[in-house]
């Protein structure tokens, strides 16, 4: 633990060694030795305590992490099937603001959705769950081969098990989505409900529910 030799703090030895001399600090240098000795002991003790605290933190964290993972595997969280994503209605618009992806005021296609969603994410909550971040993503191909995109339409922070059952009807997407390219109308996308467990201590854990939904990016309304 303590990398350097520790001074002794045992009164028996002090007594043994000092048996020929008085303990009373009747001379100033004697007094200084006395003070510096107790300070020295205090510092070495502090060092030992902080070293032990560090090791204890590491061990406790390790145990917590292992127990949490075991519990999540037992609750089978990576195949939650109590989910449905339905009634997906995409819409589109043209935006010219930088905050909606437009560069130099060039028109940029933006996509929104409305959807129904049912999900029971309560298995994700256990004693080491600080929060669950749940997000609805759409994955779709790009123009060139090998290119792919994934965007978030909606997300939510769930802080407790009571809020973990989601029943959303005609929910509007939280974000207005644009692509790297000017337009992405007509492309097919796959919707997924994904989650991220934030533990009180330990690794971030990610997963997705088994249900998917599909839609095609809408054409923006023609200018009248």
């Amino acid at each position, binding site marked *: 633990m303590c990398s350097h030799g*520790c*001074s*002794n703090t*045992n009164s028996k*030895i*002090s007594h*043994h060694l000092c048996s*020929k001399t008085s303990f009373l600090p009747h001379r100033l240098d004697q007094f200084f030795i006395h003070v510096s*000795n107790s300070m020295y002991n205090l510092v070495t003790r502090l060092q030992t305590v902080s070293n032990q605290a560090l090791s204890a933190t590491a061990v406790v964290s390790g145990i917590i992490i292992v127990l949490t993972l075991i519990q999540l595997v037992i609750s089978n969280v990576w195949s939650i099937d109590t989910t449905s994503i339905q009634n997906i209605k995409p819409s589109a618009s043209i935006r010219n603001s930088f905050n909606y992806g437009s560069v130099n005021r060039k028109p940029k296609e933006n996509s929104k959705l409305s959807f129904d969603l049912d999900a029971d994410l309560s298995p994700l909550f256990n004693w080491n769950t600080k929060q669950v971040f749940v997000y609805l993503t759409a994955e779709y191909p790009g123009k060139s081969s090998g290119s792919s995109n994934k965007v978030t339409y909606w997300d939510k922070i769930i802080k407790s098990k009571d809020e973990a059952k989601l029943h959303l009807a005609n929910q509007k997407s939280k974000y207005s989505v644009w692509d790297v390219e000017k337009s992405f109308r007509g492309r097919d996308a796959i919707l997924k409900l994904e989650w991220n467990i934030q533990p009180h201590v330990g690794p971030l854990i990610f997963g997705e529910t088994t249900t998917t939904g599909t839609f095609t990016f809408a054409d923006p309304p023609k200018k009248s």
Partner: protein
Amino acid sequence: MSALKRTNLNSVVQLRTTVDDNLNTSLSALGYNESFTLIDTKIALGYSTAIIAGGLYFYDKKYGFDETFNLTVVAVLAYFAISGILWYYTSTPQYKNVKYVGFNDKKEKITIATWTSKFEPVYYVQITTSEGQRIDAQFEFMKLFDGMGYYKEEQLTKLIKAELEKVNKKSI
């Protein structure tokens, strides 16, 4: 000089340090010359780790992480390799706690390792001679210091001399 300094009688570590620092005096009284090869090797290795770390610190500060990545890899490997060698010379049984290496006029080597345990005021000594003989001895600090904390070096000389004579008698 150090013989005039007082040592804190309540700290076993400080008692041991004082005696360790004065081993050379006692052994030269017994006709030994200290050899600094081991300690110089350790100092050289130790300072090369310090130079590597210090150099990397300033190089990294000047050029940033991405620019210096390859050099950082080399420096990290070198640092831990040298630390490993240093560890070999300080912590393997052969070298552990070695405080003194010396030769007498007949070129006979003597190696002295010393240590203390936490709660005992006892100076543990292991003397290894060039014939590979090993002497284990324990000296109480009470015999090596007076009640005020002044070190009595002639006491240690006497004790070591006695231990060495025991072996010589045996070998004869």
